[in-house]
Structure formats: C-alpha cells, structure tokens
C-alpha cells in the first residue's frame, strides 16, 4: 500500500532544485520519505506551505506589526519597538499571541456556550476553503475552470460566521454590531461581483491560468482602472478596514460582535479580517497585477511563480493598510447609500468600459 501512495505522491510532485539534495537524502529513510513526499505533493504543498497555512502565518505575523508601524509613522510617533529591540520590534505579534494564550477565556453565563466557543474555530473553514481554489502559478490545489466563481462564493460565507458569533454573545452591543455586519454585506456584494465580471469580460475567460497568461504584456489595472478602483473600495468594505470598519466600531458599540471574547478566542477572532484581506488581495493580484508573472529563477524551480504571487500580495496588503491613518469612519446608512448609488454607478461604468475594450 505504501508503494501505491508513494507513486501517487511522486507522480505530481513540486520540483525545487534548491532543496533537492536534502530531499534526496531524506528519501532514503523508510518512513520519512513518505512524509516528505506527502508534503511535496502538489495539492498538499499548496494548502500547507504557499500560499496556504505557512503563508498565512507569515502574513499575519507581519501585517499586524506593519500596520501599527506604518500608522505610527504617519502619526508622528514610532510604533512598537521594545520586544526585540535590536530588530526594531519585529516579533511584536508573536509576543501578543503568546500573551493571549495565557489569558483566561471567559464564556459568560448568558451566552450560547456551544456556538460561542466553536464559531471562532469553525470560521477557519470559509477562509481555507477558497484558498484551495486559488492557484499560485505552478502550485495548485484543485484546478478547474470554475475556480473564480467558487472562490468568490466561498468567501461570501465568512459574514455568516461573524453573525453567529455576535448572536451567541447575547449582549446588546453585540446585537447592534451583528445587525450592522449583516447590513453592510448588502452594500458591497453587488458592485464587487460586477467589477469581477468586468475583468472577466476583458479576458474572455474565468480560468485563473489564462487570465494570468493574458497579462504578460500589460497588467489588468491599466486596461480597466475604474474596475480596479471599485474593487479596491469594496475590498475595504468587505474586510472592515477604515473608513468602513462599522461593525466593529470601537467607540460606538465597543467592538460589536466580538465584544465578549477574551483570551485566545479573541486572538483568533481578531485575525479573521486579516485573513479575508489576504484572500481578496490574492484575487486582486491575479486579476489586476499580473498574478505570478515575473522573471523565472532557475534555482527555485516550481517555487518561483508562487513566490512572485506571494510577494505581490504582500506588497499590496502593506499599501492598503495605509487607509487606517487617513480616514475616520462612515455611518452605516451613509455606507449603504454610497454602495447603492455611487459605487454601483462606478462599477457599471467599468462594465461598459470593459465591454468597449473587449469589442475593440
């Protein structure tokens, strides 16, 4: 049976010349070679290393620190600096995470205990599932031509889990925040889908591989900049970034649906918007910035396109986190009005523009 598994794994393996000598030596040892072949099997490599769990962990460790540092720089001060002083405080997020482990997790008397504790853990499901469908060049999970609609549909499941968390908290402020979260979903979903449709109309396909192949000369952002602007604004609304962080408004409703969480559950819950931002920035890089196009590095072999995609998403996320220092927060009715009038008009203009480009 081991031989059957080994043949399946070796048949679709990722080829990285850099670590090939280590892999060759490890292939000699009987049980380790199964594990190494399993990790290097293409779908598992995609979901575990890049752009999967290891990628998400590196992004999370970096983006929280970077956002604090960048915001501090704009605000005439210096951000976190003390934890590893020589390195400029880079491991601040790790220190925060370790601190959350030591705090007490309190589930109060009036909460629905089952949902209250389980939902932050189950909410990783709609985050990791779309990741299976987004390929990274030469590393892919499930390769179909319907990958883009499936990924978008799974991403839109995330607000349901946030609603569950808010409802299970059984708290007045959590209730107000949950209702706002449900409302804001209606503000951004339709312009978001229209702008994605505008890009697929230009590329004439919904398959990720062909989209990236068509952007080898000009990236998508120059073909249809209006669709990019609409995508960017709806990305800000979807991931609750300022100026639209209405469901988790700190001053008005004391953190909204997450108000009753403490300890490690709070740490998990706080990373949820960042993970959604990661997914949406991967999609935006593929649609608008050329995906994994980049000069090939022979020593990294199959890893090079995946690394290009990762680096581009990294830079995109770092620049988007500047909005925290520019804007305050809109009201919920202003956002809904904006979403259905101005942003919808912009997205339809983008659709017409891309229809014109496609005809030409």
């Amino acid at each position, binding site marked *: 049976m081991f031989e059957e598994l080994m043949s399946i794994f070796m048949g679709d393996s990722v080829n990285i010349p850099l670590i090939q000598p280590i892999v060759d030596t490890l292939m000699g040892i009987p049980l380790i070679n199964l594990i190494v072949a399993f990790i290097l099997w293409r779908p598992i490599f995609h979901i575990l290393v890049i752009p999967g769990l290891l990628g998400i962990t590196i992004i999370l460790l970096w983006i929280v620190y970077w956002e604090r540092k960048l915001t501090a*720089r*704009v605000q*005439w*001060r*210096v951000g976190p*600096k003390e934890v590893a002083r020589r390195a400029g405080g880079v491991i601040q997020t790790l220190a925060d995470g370790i601190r959350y482990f030591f705090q007490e997790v309190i589930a109060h008397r009036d909460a629905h205990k089952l949902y209250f504790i389980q939902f932050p853990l189950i909410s990783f499901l709609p985050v990791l599932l779309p990741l299976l469908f987004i390929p990274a060049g030469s590393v892919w999970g499930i390769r179909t031509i319907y990958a883009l609609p499936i990924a978008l549909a799974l991403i839109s499941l995330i607000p349901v889990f946030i609603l569950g968390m808010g409802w299970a908290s059984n708290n007045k402020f959590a209730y107000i925040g949950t209702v706002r979260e449900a409302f804001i979903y209606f503000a951004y979903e339709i312009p978001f889908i229209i702008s994605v449709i505008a890009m697929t109309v230009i590329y004439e396909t919904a398959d990720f591989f062909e989209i990236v192949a068509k952007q080898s000369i000009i990236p998508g952002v120059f073909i249809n900049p209006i669709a990019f602007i609409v995508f960017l604004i709806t990305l800000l609304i979807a991931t609750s970034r300022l100026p639209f962080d209405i469901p988790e408004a700190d001053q008005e409703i004391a953190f909204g649906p997450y108000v009753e969480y403490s300890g490690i559950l709070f740490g998990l819950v706080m990373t949820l918007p960042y993970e959604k931002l990661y997914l949406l920035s991967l999609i935006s890089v593929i649609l608008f910035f050329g995906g994994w196009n980049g000069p090939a590095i022979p020593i990294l072999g199959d890893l090079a396109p995946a690394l290009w995609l990762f680096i581009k998403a990294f830079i995109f996320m770092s620049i988007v986190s*500047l909005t925290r*220092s*520019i804007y305050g927060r809109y009201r919920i009715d202003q956002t809904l009005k904006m979403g259905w009038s101005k942003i919808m008009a912009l997205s339809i203009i983008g659709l017409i523009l891309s229809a014109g480009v496609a005809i030409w």
Partner: protein
Amino acid sequence: MVKIVKPPKVDITRTVIGHLKAIGEATKQAIAPDTITIHYPRERRKYPDNFRGLMIFSKDECISCFRCAHICPANAIQMFPDENGRYYPGVDYAKCILCHFCIDSCPTAALKPSKIHDVAFKDVESMFIKEMDGIPEIKREDKKLVEYDFEEDLKITKRKYVENLIVEVPKPPRPKMIAAVKSPENCIGCRLCFFACPVDAISSKAEELEIILDTDPKKCTGCGICVRICPTDVLILQPVREG
C-alpha cells in the same frame, strides 16, 4: 468685531480633491515623517531651570518657622523634631502636588527646587520622607538629552549628555527680620511666646505679681512663631536696620 465662519459647500469636485489631498498628506508623512516623540526613559527632555520637581532641603539654613507646613494646600508637610528638639519639615510625596508654595514661603531658602520629578518609590511608606536633609540618591536610566526648540517648525536636538538635576537658585532678597514689641500694654503674661520659641530667645522673669518677658535680639532668627501665636497681638516682625 465679528468674524463669521461658514462650512464649505459639498459637491463632487471638492470631495474628490479633498480625498486626494488627505491621501497625499498621509503618504507624504509615511515617507518622510515629522516624528516628535522621544524614546523615554533612554532619552529625556530638557527642563528649564525653574522646573517644579522635588524639594531639596538643607538643615543648616532652616529656622523652624513652620511656614511651609502652614501654607501647603495638600497638608503634605509635617514637622518632626530631631535630637536637639528643633523641628524640621518632612514631606509626604503621596500628597504633594508640587505647587512649590512652600518654597515660595521659605524665608531663608532652606527649601530649594530641583528637576527631579519622575522617580518611583518602592512602597507607599517610603514616600513619606521624614529626614529630608541632603540630596536624594536616584538611579538614572537616561543616556541622551532631547531639547525642544521652535524655528519654522519644531526643532529637536538630541545630545549624548546626562543632565544635572540639581539647580543653583539665588537666595531671595529678604533682609533679616527679628521680633520686636509693638504693643506691650496688651501682654497678659500667658507665656505662649516663651514656650513656642525654637531657639529660646525669650526669657521670662516673675517679679511680684507681674511677669516680664524679654526678647534677645542676638538669638532671634526671625521665624515669627511668637508673633503668630500671641493671642493679644503684642509682637511684630521687623527688619533689622544696620547700625
């Protein structure tokens, strides 16, 4: 004269320009920031010479006049006797508000200001300093000195320099005063002044049915306790005339 302010009108061009200006300002600050914070406690701000910090007390000049204890708004100063029986002040820094009314009241500048203010005490009892003589010993953590000054914009100068926290202040131009008798006919012989004088400059003699009290001008330090304690307003403080 009146100046009227009106909010601006809102239309699409102003909104877009407003957004672009805000984003431009933030990007400019992200690239070249005007940081004004300092890395305390390794760097420390330079304070002016009249900064209100903890009080430094020198016992040689104190005349035990009790003025500081009377004027303190927070009742933070209490007087404690030493082995000779004279009273000297002790400050409770848990109550002190660093207003320096006591320093302004001290006639001989025995209490002096200093720049020490951000020290930590190990427990609450040690905040009540009963023996204040001399300069307190503090552990310094700062290595650099930051000075704020104003030119076109804020100008920050950082130097590798540890500042001396003890300041030299001149004595106030107050002449020496001694107690003198203003209205001797009011004296009722209660001898409160005789008991209150810290340097025993008043002597009392009993002669038949009268008690005569005498002040000694050489011993008198001008503290004024006898003036304040006399119930019938007999004494007054007067400056010494030369010759």
